[in-house]
Structures are given as structure tokens and as C-alpha cells.
């Protein structure tokens, strides 16, 4: 964990005060008596501290979106942060950094899913909608279950749920993934989207209703 003049120490995950302090340190302009090298050093340490406080959540979000593909989730996490550093100047602080970061991660995943595939794996393509499809139709999540059959059934259920989520209209899909997989509070989603909290809850209700209907239809 980065330490030093910034006093980053250890961060509580999601600590708003720490996040603001780090962002302020990151964006502090040149001050008298500080060399450019010192400025850069502080900025890098602040960035690393922000990174450490957010990367687990970002990775978890992408892992869920990717259906448990750990390698892909790691690659997309790396891509997300690269974009975040490039776009950091545009972060206006209206919403939390983690909320802003979630949007980048979410879009990174969608862009990846939409990329044309040069190679269609045997046993199912996922070519039509760019979805990641496994040969057995199950997700990659490994959970502890009493029997392999139950584990397979559970993972297939999760994969169906994931596909149903990704098939939602964009506004509902974003809201559902932000709330349940990005673990963002309703007010943060509302603030970032420029809508009210009531509108967010309405979207969530509508989305879960659609998902329920879709999953029932899939089982028929």
C-alpha cells in the first residue's frame, strides 16, 4: 500500500473522504516549492492508492459481466484503468470516482462484446451478439455444491441470468449491472445518470420484471 506524504495508508473500500482526498492530491496543481518530479511522484502515488481501493470491485464487476472468465475480466480491468487515466481530466466530481469508473468498465465490456470475432470457437459461436459462450452453456463460476450436477445446474442458471441481463434495453441493463454487479448505491447511479432516485428504482423494478419473464420463458 502506497504511503508517504499523501498519508494514504490503508483505505476503507468505498471511503468517500479518502477518495476525495486522493483525487484532490492527484489533481493538485504545481505549487511553490515543489519540483515537477515531486509532483509526479505524489500524483502517481495518489493514482496507485485510488487503484488499490477500486480494482477489486472493478474486477468483480467485469468478472460477472464476462460470465466468470477470469482472464478476460483481468484484461478488461486493465483496459478500463488505461482509459480512466486518459480520461481523468474529464472527471468533474459530480459522482463518485467509483461510479465514474464503473461506467468506463461497463462500456469497455460492451465494446469488447461487440467486437467482430475473427474466430468462432467450435461448439457455439456467440457471433451474433458478441456474447461469450461456453461449449456447455454454463458459466465459468466454480462454486461449492453438493454434487457436480447441482454445480452445473447452478452455473447454467447464472449464465441464463447473465444473458438475460445483457439482453435488456440499454438503460435498464446499465442500471441493473450498476446496482447489482457494480454495487453502486441508487443515489450514485441517479447522480451519474442525471435522473432521480425514483427513476432508478423504477428502472430496477422494470428490469427485474422483464428478467423474471424472460427466465420463465427460457425454462419452458
Amino acid at each position, binding site marked *: 500500500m502506497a504511503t508517504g506524504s499523501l498519508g494514504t495508508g490503508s483505505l476503507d473500500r468505498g471511503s468517500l473522504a479518502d477518495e476525495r482526498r486522493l483525487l484532490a492530491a*492527484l*489533481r493538485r*496543481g*504545481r505549487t511553490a516549492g515543489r519540483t*515537477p518530479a515531486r*509532483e*509526479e511522484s*505524489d*500524483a*502517481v502515488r495518489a*493514482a*496507485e492508492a485510488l*487503484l*488499490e481501493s477500486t*480494482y477489486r470491485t472493478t*474486477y*468483480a464487476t467485469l468478472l*460477472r459481466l464476462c460470465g*466468470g472468465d*477470469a482472464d478476460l*475480466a*483481468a484484461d478488461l*480491468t*486493465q483496459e478500463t*484503468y*488505461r*482509459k*480512466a*487515466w486518459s*480520461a*481523468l*481530466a*474529464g472527471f*468533474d466530481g*459530480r459522482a463518485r470516482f467509483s461510479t*465514474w469508473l464503473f*461506467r*468506463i468498465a461497463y*462500456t*469497455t465490456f*460492451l*465494446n469488447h462484446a461487440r467486437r467482430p470475432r475473427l474466430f468462432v470457437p467450435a461448439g457455439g459461436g456467440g457471433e451474433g451478439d458478441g456474447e461469450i459462450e461456453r461449449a456447455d452453456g454454463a458459466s465459468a*463460476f466454480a*462454486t461449492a455444491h453438493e454434487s457436480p450436477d447441482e454445480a452445473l445446474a447452478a452455473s447454467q*442458471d*447464472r449464465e441464463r*441470468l*447473465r444473458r438475460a*441481463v445483457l439482453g435488456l434495453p440499454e438503460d435498464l441493463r446499465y442500471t*441493473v449491472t450498476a446496482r*447489482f*454487479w457494480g454495487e453502486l448505491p441508487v443515489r450514485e447511479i441517479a447522480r451519474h445518470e*442525471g435522473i432521480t432516485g425514483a427513476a432508478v428504482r423504477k428502472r*430496477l*423494478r422494470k428490469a*427485474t*420484471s422483464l*428478467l*423474471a419473464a424472460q*427466465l420463465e420463458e427460457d425454462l419452458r
Partner: protein
Amino acid sequence: MTGRHRQREIARRLRDVPAGEPPAALLGRLRADVPTDLAERLDADRDEPAPSAPARPLRTLRWVPVAAALTMLLGGGFLVWRVFDGVRLVERAAPEPAAVREAAAGGEGAAHQAPVTAGRGEGDESRAVAGDRGGGAADLRAEMRGSAARAPDVSAARKAEEPRPTAAPPPPDAGDADLPAPGAEATPLGRRETEGPGPSAALQAAREAKRAPIAEPPPAAVFAEPSPAPPDLEVGAEAPPSLGEARTARLPAVPFVETAAARRSTFALDVPAGSGAERRVRIGRTAPRGRSFGLLADGGPSPFRDDPRFRLLRFVVQAVGPGSDSAEEVRAQVEIDEGAVVRWRALGHQSLTVEGAIGPGDSVTALYEIELAEGPPLGELASVGLRWRDANTGLLHEIERPVRPGDLAPTWDAASPGFRLAAIAAAFAETLSSPSPDPERLAELARRAEALAEETGEAVALARRIRRAERLRAGSAP
């Protein structure tokens, strides 16, 4: 299972999707990616002046599209294209039956004399001319293309008179598909004579300008007023039919809207989503960093009426910066201040874009006429906001530019050349939209355009057009 129960069950299943721990090596990889010049990058962005007024967070606006205003914008837009089509409109305004019959009897030679823009709601005369051939607007255009191929090429002589762009023209694009072929221009007002067809010089210039390479964007620290190049309102083959129809329809005079009733007007820089003809707006991100769009707002006396209470506002959205990044959902919204403006009307908006994309240097200009409230104006008159989404990050960007009384030029001559050019073009288009354009009005506009042409070469073609229309109208007036 009730609906609410099912929803709760779904929510529980969503939460139960496992998170998983990241690989041990991931943090190291991420740390290695942290830029070592992060502070310098942030400083550079901080030091760059805003392209227009100081950026401020967009107020929480409800981007409620004003359907009526948007319809007026689309129907009454593309003003400057109408300028270069103005002569044909003036002709149709006062057709001479004898000339029409002569043209109809002229057969093939008269085919390419007929107006080419017979679109929805107009072109009755052209249909009368083409009626013998049993064709509508599409048939007329097709016929003229064929005739143009056989017509003598007099366009070369006219082209020699016009300043030619220095850049080599790129291959023709789909946007020219609907343009009339060279040589298929309508004849002067009321006379279907074979005086020698040729392309509208301005239309040709517009085509050439469109094909010219995009100029380098202005320096990062300066947001320059966009060059008022000959406008090109051609919409690509992917454009929705409504835009194409609006391009060719006769323009009615745009009515005023009471500010108390409606004070927001929205126009899009790309094709609306769901229209089946979506078009990505490509903007750059490299220089200036983070500055993808710029907003310009100015105004001055309205050329539509001699009343100091009326002003014309001009908003320009310009794409800056090269690159291949994309912007989506680009929307501009104008909000009129209810306390400062009694009523307003959106005259339309005109794009200077390359087919299929808005690239660096491209711009969209929107014009609004306002009637000021009594008393000295305080605060802002209006504001224009721009919102777009970065396709790479999914992040929304917003910028806003207010218009204050000090932004308006006190006199016509004090206004910028770009403003005056856009204003004259808009007034010309609206004048021509009348069934009987006022000759005195045309003369006044011609005088203004000629005075402007002494300052900027971009007004030369416009001035020539207006003067020609004025002469034709005066000659055909009873």
C-alpha cells in the same frame, strides 16, 4: 409466485452471482500502467482555456424535446442550401404560362430546365412541365441526369470564373447521389428557355468545398469562428427520408413561439437513434486533449425586420481535434430565458459536415430569432448546451455556453462576418419561401450581401445569387 416476489427473487439471484478474487498478478499489471506523467497531463488540461465561455456544469435540464420546434428545425432548416436553390424558387413563384408551355413543347431540351428540387409539397410547376412525361420528381431528376449527359457542357465556362479550391478532390461520395447532374440546373425565373444550362455556380462550389480535405483544426488554445464556407447540406445515402424530404420541401415562414409556453429547442448533430440510419460522429481527442467540441454563440440585429427589439442569435457547434474516437448521442439544446425574451423562433440549423461523419473542423450552425422583453436586458438571453457520449468510455460529456446581451453586436456592421453571412442566407431563404418574394426585400439583402462580399470571399456567391434573384423578380413583377 407474485410479481413482487419474482422481482425479489431475481434481485437475490443477481446479487448472488459470485464476485471472485482478482488474480495475484493483476495489481502489479495495473500499477505498471499508471502514467508517470499524470500530473503533467492533468496540468496541461487544466491550463487549456475553454473553447468558448468558461465551462460550467450543465444545469440539470430536462432534455425534453420540443417536438414542434424540432419539426420546424428540420422542415425549415438547411437555409443556406435554399440560398443556392433560390433562383429556382423565384422562378416557380411567378411562372409565365407561355414559357411553361414553350418549355413543355421543347421536349428533351427543356427537360433539364425544370427545377430539380421538386420534393414534397412543392414543384407543382415542375410536375406540370413533366406531366407530359408522366413523371414525378424522381423521374424528373432521372430525366435531367440523362439530359445533362447529352447537353452541351457550358459549366466549364462558369467554373473558370469561380475560384477553385487548391486541394485535389477526393472520390465522389454517396452524398452526391441526390445532387442534380451538372447541366441540369433550372432556368431563370419564369422562362423555360434554353439559354444554356449549367450547374449552379454556388452549388458547384459547394460540391467542391465538400470534397476538399478537412482543414487542420485550430490551435488548442483558440477556438476560431468556423469558416463560413459554402454550405453543403447534402445528407448521405444513409440519411433518413425525413431529412431528405426536408431538404427539398418548400420552407414555410417559421412562426414565433412564446417563451412562456416553450423555451427549449433541441437539435441533433447526428441522425436520431432508432431511425434506421444512425451515423457515428467521429471526433478527435488528441489535440486539444479532452476538447472534442467547441461552442460559439453570438448575435446581432435581425435582418428580418427593422425593429431593435428583434435580434438574431447564432450558435455554432464545432468539432475540434483529429483522431478516430467516436462520439455518440450528440445533442444540442438551446434554452431561451423567459425573463429576457418574449418570444422566439428557431430558423433552422445547417451542417457543414463530410459525408457520414462530423470530423475536425466541421460545424453545425443554428439560428434563432428572438424578441427582447421591454427594458434593458439583464443576465443571460439564452444558453446552448451540448451533450455527447464518448463511445470508448461510455462517459457523458457536457458543455454549455451562455449568451449575454454583451455578446450581441450593437449594429449590423459590427457583427462578425460569419454571423452576417448566416443571417443574410436565412433571410434570403425565408424571403424566397414566400409565394411572391418582395423585390425590395431582395434588393436590401443583395445590398447587404455585396457589402459583406467586400470583406469575405465566402459572401461573393451569395451576393451574386441574391442580386440575380432580385433582378429576375423585378423583371417578372407585374
